[in-house]
């Protein structure tokens, strides 16, 4: 009898029909997801939707904020509690058609705002490596589910690091694709110019397999576009001739010693594989977080205006229309969402728009230019994914600014719209450390090739989290 949970998603897809059936595979994961002790799942499917595609029925966990017809899609918020949309997100439809049926919906920070999953209206997710610690966020449920072997693979979304940071803290692989390569139709919006769906997987091979079935221009998302490159499975064994740039702004100050040690050891492996490693500059990267915390809340304050108690979701009882709006939003939104709505509204308000929103958009231009300059000399820019390993539940909840600093190394790539992948580089004090590689727009397949070679050399073993 095959140990189904020990297989990667790609191995499971190969084994279906030969060594076991798709039903057996789905049931094995359904049982584990239903017995979830990490609060990773908010809803688990009873049955697999019929599917015959190249993914052979390997079930998929999906972040709560993707709309799934008739199935709770709440974006981790009380204001959407038990909301069951009348349609399904394009990317979920595409993956179902490719043969990856919906296994369940995963917990997340409310409206994807957070770096620890503690902002969920449905309680925090626990990190499978140490249940007293956070899994990261906002795609914390998806990351924990994959790391713990409750799902073969999962969909997340990344606005400023929400795929890469939880992937790092849970010891798995997470890809934030080039903005636009995956349709945003049916994703409950946070910050529309930054939001992007991507895979959370056990290894780079699974990541490439899932991603190739996610991409494509969608008439229902006018910002989506076709990926210009032919999909391919990663296969590089060496990194000969690959030039890696280490931005000095994102690889020193503020980063834990254990994380830096793991990062440097991974760079040594890269050199052994034939890569060259040199310091590079991203002079505006230290300002990325400031720009991000203007732009993302500004867009969020507009996107979240739709939650008014009229058409769906929570409604507070009230005698007049205006107080119905204000009470519904008071009752339905959590503290972090309120905070960001206020920051965004402030930054867009009369008299402050130029000083905040306008300047932040100019900083965004400078950051994109920094990356373009770096990619003239380097194939990829590499950094630690997160400044720390998984922290204790409650450790940062009383200081919003300290929580925001978790995104220090991931936000610059989001602002530039470029792809970045996090792979586990090792353990520090028994907890996973993430290694981030970023490349120019549309370089996903080259990026995953390099990540694959490095992954093989690093030989990270995540099986302890699935025990």
């Amino acid at each position, binding site marked *: 009898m095959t140990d189904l949970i020990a297989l990667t998603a790609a191995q499971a897809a190969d084994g279906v029909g030969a060594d076991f059936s798709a039903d057996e595979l789905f049931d094995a994961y359904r049982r584990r997801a239903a017995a979830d002790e990490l609060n990773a799942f908010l809803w688990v499917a009873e049955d697999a939707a019929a599917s015959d595609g190249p993914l052979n029925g390997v079930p998929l966990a999906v972040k709560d904020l993707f709309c799934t017809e008739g199935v709770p899609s709440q974006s981790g918020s009380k204001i959407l509690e038990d*909301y*069951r*949309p*009348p*349609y399904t997100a394009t990317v979920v439809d595409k993956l179902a058609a490719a043969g990856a049926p919906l296994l369940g919906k995963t917990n997340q920070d409310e409206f994807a705002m957070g770096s620890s999953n503690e902002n969920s209206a449905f309680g925090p997710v626990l990190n499978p490596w140490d249940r007293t610690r956070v899994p990261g966020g906002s795609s914390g449920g998806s990351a924990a589910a994959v790391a713990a072997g409750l799902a073969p693979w999962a969909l997340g979304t990344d606005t400023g690091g929400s795929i890469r940071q939880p992937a790092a803290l849970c010891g798995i692989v997470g890809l934030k694709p*080039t*903005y*636009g390569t995956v349709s945003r139709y049916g994703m409950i919006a946070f910050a529309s*110019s930054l939001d992007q769906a991507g895979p959370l997987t056990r290894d780079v091979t699974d990541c490439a397999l899932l991603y190739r079935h996610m991409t494509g221009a969608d008439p229902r998302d*006018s*910002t989506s*576009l076709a990926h210009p490159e032919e999909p391919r499975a990663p296969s590089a064994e060496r990194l000969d001739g690959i030039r890696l740039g280490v931005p000095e702004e994102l690889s020193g100050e503020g980063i834990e010693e254990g994380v830096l040690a793991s990062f440097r050891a991974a760079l040594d492996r890269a050199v052994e594989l034939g890569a060259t490693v040199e310091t590079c500059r991203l002079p*505006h990267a230290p300002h990325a977080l*400031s*720009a991000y*915390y*203007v732009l993302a809340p500004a867009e969020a304050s507009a996107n979240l*205006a739709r939650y008014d*108690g*009229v*058409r*769906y*979701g*929570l409604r507070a009882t*009230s*005698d*007049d*229309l*205006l107080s*119905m*709006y*204000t*009470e519904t*939003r*008071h009752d339905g939104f959590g503290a972090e969402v*309120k*905070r960001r*709505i*206020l*920051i965004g*509204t*402030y930054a867009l*308000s009369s008299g402050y728009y130029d*000083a*905040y929103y*306008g*300047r*932040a*958009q*100019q*900083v*965004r*231009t*400078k950051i*994109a230019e920094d990356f373009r300059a770096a990619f003239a000399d380097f194939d990829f820019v590499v950094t630690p994914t997160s400044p720390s390993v998984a922290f204790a539940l409650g450790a940062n909840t009383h200081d*919003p600014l300290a929580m*925001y600093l978790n995104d220090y190394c991931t936000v610059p790539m989001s*602002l*530039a719209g470029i792809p970045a992948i996090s792979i586990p580089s090792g353990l520090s004090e028994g907890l996973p450390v993430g290694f981030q590689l970023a490349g120019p*727009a549309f370089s996903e397949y080259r990026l995953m090739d390099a990540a694959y070679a490095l992954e093989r050399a690093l030989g990270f073993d995540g099986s302890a989290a699935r025990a």
Partner: protein
Amino acid sequence: MIDREQVLHVARLARLRLSDEEVETMAGELSSILGHIERISELDLDGVQPTTHVVEVENALREDEPRPSLPRDVILEQAPATQDGGFLVPSPQA
């Protein structure tokens, strides 16, 4: 830097009621966050074009052809209150 009155003003713009306690906490937290954000005022950004969208896309046009939309009863199913095939809300004048 951000006082109670400013918090209340912004909350009113955002159609968000805050409890007294929330107003107090938010004033402190927003001040510290905006303090961090304001570091971008140190940068020389004269003549720099703002970025609103990172990937170059031409205007996305399509034929203006009617297509079926979701049925009315399906949409109304999720509404907190309905009447005569529409969304029911409290009176704006109450």
